[in-house]
């Protein structure tokens, strides 16, 4: 029965990892791409990849890091394949038509929309910082970019997001 | 050689007939190109059930439950059910062009609008179109448009309008009495 148990055990490990990390993987893709269907496809692909590479995973923490890294890579790849909207700098994005002062519940949605208009790298940096609570050095390690670049993206993106939101509020007066 | 030629001709004829039948069947199934509305909608529903899915679902309908039994009977002749429903937070999210691309697909002689109802109270407009071939209904489209809502339901196949209307007696809705004979 040892052989059967080992197959079941591997299955159990994989299922446990999926339960623990599915929201993280899906959310990285969803917040980056703003498309549920594509995000689910990416998440499925990431977990299938994990299953193929399960033997190389060293620990539960390693699995989390591995999944996050692959989710980031696949999301960026998917974004590059999408030809729907060209990447524009946040400063060039037209303001949405103002219809009323946004109530607090709408603020989250507005923020998500504005984040989705950021260029790829700053967008992913913001998601990893505020969805995953990673510090700049962890983000730099994950995305293989310098820490200084991460900090610069964060600073600039936050300033732009605040400016856009503030402008929206001023227009309502 | 003659045999090969006749086989080839038979094959070509069979393909042509199949294509014609497919085109006929496909004509009752509309192309609902409304994905662009999903991005603007606060809530959206997308149901797409082809014949095999309907038959599969039918196996899970409980014959002892009156609602499910009625539906189980109804879907026997149905080849597909396709529904897109959108709700929007604000008016102006959908346009007449969105409706036109659906209405334009029902310009063939087989299609006819059998009823149109406008509600002045809530601005809701409901239309029912049917595809009638050889005296049988082979497709139904129900189009419901309101300032903040748009629903398109396309039912393909041998649809019994009486049975569909009879469903009003189920699902907690009041049953409508069927008119007894035509008024002269």
């Amino acid at each position, binding site marked *: 029965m*040892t*052989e059967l148990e*080992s197959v079941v*055990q*591997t299955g159990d490990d*994989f*299922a446990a990892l*999926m*339960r623990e990390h*599915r*929201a*993280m993987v*899906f*959310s990285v893709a969803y*917040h980056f791409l703003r498309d*549920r269907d594509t*995000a*689910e496809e990416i*998440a*499925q692909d990431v977990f*299938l990849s994990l299953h193929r590479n*399960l033997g190389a*995973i060293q*620990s*539960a923490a390693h699995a989390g890091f591995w999944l996050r890294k692959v989710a980031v890579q696949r999301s960026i790849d998917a974004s590059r394949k999408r030809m729907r909207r060209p990447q524009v700098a946040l400063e060039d994005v037209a303001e949405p038509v103002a219809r009323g002062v946004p109530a607090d519940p709408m603020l*989250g949605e507005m*923020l998500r929309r504005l*984040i989705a208009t950021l260029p790829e790298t700053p967008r992913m940096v913001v*998601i990893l910082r*505020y*969805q995953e609570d990673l510090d700049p050095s962890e983000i730099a390690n994950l995305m293989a970019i310098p820490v200084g670049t991460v900090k610069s993206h964060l600073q600039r993106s*936050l300033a732009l997001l605040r400016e856009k939101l503030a402008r929206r509020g001023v227009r309502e007066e | 050689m003659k045999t090969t030629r006749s086989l080839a001709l038979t094959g070509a004829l069979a393909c042509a007939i199949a294509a014609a039948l497919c085109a006929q069947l496909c004509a009752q199934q509309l192309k609902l190109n409304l994905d662009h509305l999903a991005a603007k909608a606060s809530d959206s*529903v997308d*149901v797409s*059930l082809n014949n095999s*899915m309907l038959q599969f679902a039918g*196996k*899970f*309908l409980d014959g002892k439950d009156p*609602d*499910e039994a009625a*539906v189980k009977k109804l879907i026997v002749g149905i080849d597909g*059910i396709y*529904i897109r429903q959108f709700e929007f937070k604000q008016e102006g999210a959908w346009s007449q062009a969105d409706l036109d691309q659906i209405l334009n697909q029902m310009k063939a002689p087989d299609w006819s609008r059998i*009823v149109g*109802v406008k509600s002045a109270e809530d601005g809701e407009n*409901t239309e*029912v179109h049917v595809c009638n071939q050889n005296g049988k209904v082979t497709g139904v489209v*129900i189009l419901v448009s309101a300032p903040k809502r748009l629903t398109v*339901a396309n*039912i393909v196949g041998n649809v019994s*309008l009486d049975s*569909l*209307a009879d*469903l*009003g007696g*189920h*699902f907690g*809705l009041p049953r*409508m009495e069927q008119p007894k004979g035509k008024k002269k």
Partner: protein
Amino acid sequence: MDWLEDELKFEDELRKALQRQEPSPDFEARVTSTVRSKVTAAAGQRRPVFSRPLAPGPRPLSPVPWPLGLMPRWLATAAAVLVITSAGAGYRYHRGHVAKEQVMFAMRLAGSQLNRIQMQMKAVRP
């Protein structure tokens, strides 16, 4: 220190906006189903017993005494079939009920609209 408080509040709003969300309820079932079908395909391949070395590198996540690749082929196939049958049956049941609910929703929608039209027509009929 108002600016710092504002900055912290803004970052809180960003965290709220970027809270993790769950994928659809049948996500795990779909992934599991795909994984199991790949296990069957792998088990069915002709693979000489004991001819493949253990994968080099770090130790696996948990002790796995006999890696799948080294099992006797008949045993791997039997294990895969057992797992797939039970997982597949469960997944089929789930998909069937999802389809059933969609059919019921569709029929409710069509029935309610036609019923409403009938009521309106009855109201205007002399």
